[in-house]
């Protein structure tokens, strides 16, 4: 479990993280979302104990990171931004070093080593020095380091940043597989990641919490939530006709591909009436879709609000 209470960090006049209160429970993958410079990494560094909070507290599994730093760090596996590691060491040396630092003991250490190496498919590069590895492999080494001691709480700062789609998929699968009995906090600015991984999202902007919701709840905030879009090639679908439907608030036509999006009035369901109308008009519709809402739009809307304004 990770809890923060009014966690604040100031650098001179700049407030990087402003009174942030979040809570992540076991079994939860909490996504920390925000544009670059929103304070995601700073918040994580405070939870990891690398930076001291200017105000407020953070607890990992009930251990205050300031008052019981070692107990908090024992419960935590942390992948810092960019997955730093000692480049001159081989992967094996590095993981053995981490095992020693975490006092894993010979037996447990070896078992966990084998498990983690297998899970992250590092067998082939064990004797390679980390400097010579590709970005994706280095990220995997960083992940291996974070989960080596089988921590109940995992905190990953942009775990898939800079990876190719296949590598992203592997890392996400891994996080998914570990999520069941753990608390996982990941930071990202990739919205696809939210869909793929998170069951709860915290959005930060200017160091402040702007939203704390499930991905579905966020999508529901989108203008596109419940909208119906379709392509009807070659037919001048009467926008007037659609506009006359009582549930419809607006209609947009994509100037590039002619795709038509019909927006509902708040709370209204418009898929059926639109379909019915199209049928009645005898219009050929190649494909029709009910939109869930667009996270990118909600994200933009939330994070570009004026600093200090309430979300």
């Amino acid at each position, binding site marked *: 479990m990770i809890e923060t209470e009014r966690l604040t960090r100031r650098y001179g006049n700049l407030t990087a993280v402003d009174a942030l209160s979040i809570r992540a429970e076991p079994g939860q993958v909490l996504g920390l979302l925000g544009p670059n410079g929103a304070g995601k990494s700073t918040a994580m560094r405070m939870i*990891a104990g*690398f930076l001291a909070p200017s105000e407020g507290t953070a607890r990992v599994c009930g251990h205050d990171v300031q008052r019981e730093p070692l107990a908090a760090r024992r419960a935590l596996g*942390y992948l810092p*931004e960019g997955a*730093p590691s*000692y480049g001159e*060491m081989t992967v094996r040396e590095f993981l053995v070093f981490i095992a020693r630092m975490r006092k894993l003991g010979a037996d447990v250490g070896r078992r966990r080593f084998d498990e983690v190496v297998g899970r992250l498919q590092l067998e082939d590069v064990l004797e390679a020095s980390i400097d010579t590895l590709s970005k994706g492999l280095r990220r995997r080494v960083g992940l291996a380091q974070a989960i080596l001691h089988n921590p109940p709480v995992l905190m990953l700062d942009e775990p898939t940043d800079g990876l190719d789609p296949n590598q992203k998929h592997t890392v996400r699968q891994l996080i998914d597989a570990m999520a069941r009995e753990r608390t996982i906090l990941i930071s990202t600015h990739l919205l696809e990641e939210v869909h793929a991984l998170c069951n709860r999202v915290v959005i930060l902007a200017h160091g402040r919490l702007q939203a704390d919701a499930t991905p579905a709840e966020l999508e529901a905030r989108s203008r596109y939530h419940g909208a119906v879009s379709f392509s009807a090639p070659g037919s001048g679908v009467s926008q007037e006709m659609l506009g006359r439907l009582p549930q419809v608030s607006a209609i947009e036509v994509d100037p590039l591909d002619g795709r038509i999006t019909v927006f509902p009035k708040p709370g209204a369901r418009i898929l059926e009436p639109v379909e019915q109308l199209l049928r009645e008009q005898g219009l050929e519709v190649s494909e029709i879709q009910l939109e869930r809402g667009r996270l990118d739009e909600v994200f933009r809307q939330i994070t570009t609000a004026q600093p200090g304004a309430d979300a």
Partner: protein
Amino acid sequence: MSPVNAVMRRELRSFFVTPMAWVFLVIFLVLAGILTFYAGDFYERGQADLQPFFAMHPWLYLILVPAVTMRMWAEEAKGGTLELLLSLPVTLWQAMLGKFLAAWLFMGLALALTFPIWLTVNYLGSPDNGVILAGYLASWLMAGSFVAIGACLSALTRSQVVAFVLTAVVCVLLILAGQPQVLDFFSGALPRRLINALAYLSMLRHFEAIARGVLDLRDLAYFLLSTLGWLLAGVLLLELKRVR
């Protein structure tokens, strides 16, 4: 294995995977030899002791210790591994101690590898080996103080060059503090008491005292306390960086 031990072993390894450590050892041994025979008049003195050999050590350390310690924290801060290290269950003090011990042991190894000169002097005459042992002890203790200074100042900056220069400057000040020229220079301006304090700060004075074979508790305490003091200052600096 304790975290101190783990950090120490990692540091020692990292010395030897780069050619840096080997280059250092060779330069140290060559310089120690050359300076002893040429600058120190080893033969012409006609005495079977290692006084000229040990007299060169402060000046050798002045250049070589900063080279060993400059990367200690600066590299970690720059490469981002500091964040990794400090998210592991290790206190700043343990990490500092581990790094210090690694560099100090390394200096001990360099010192131990000068044994041929000890063999030479024993072949040429019959020196007082007790005094020579005391000389080695004094030299290693002094190296410890220098390493602690370097460890502290490396924590101050992300730049290895800055760490090197700062360490060299502080070390040269501490070597020179007790020299008669320096004391004379200040004797007009400062009260007697302060001059004595300045003289007492001098590394050279305590080093020479032990190297003569006189094991005074005060000289040992000087090195141990200054080593601990600088390490503590380094830990405080790191802690300050965390808060600031």
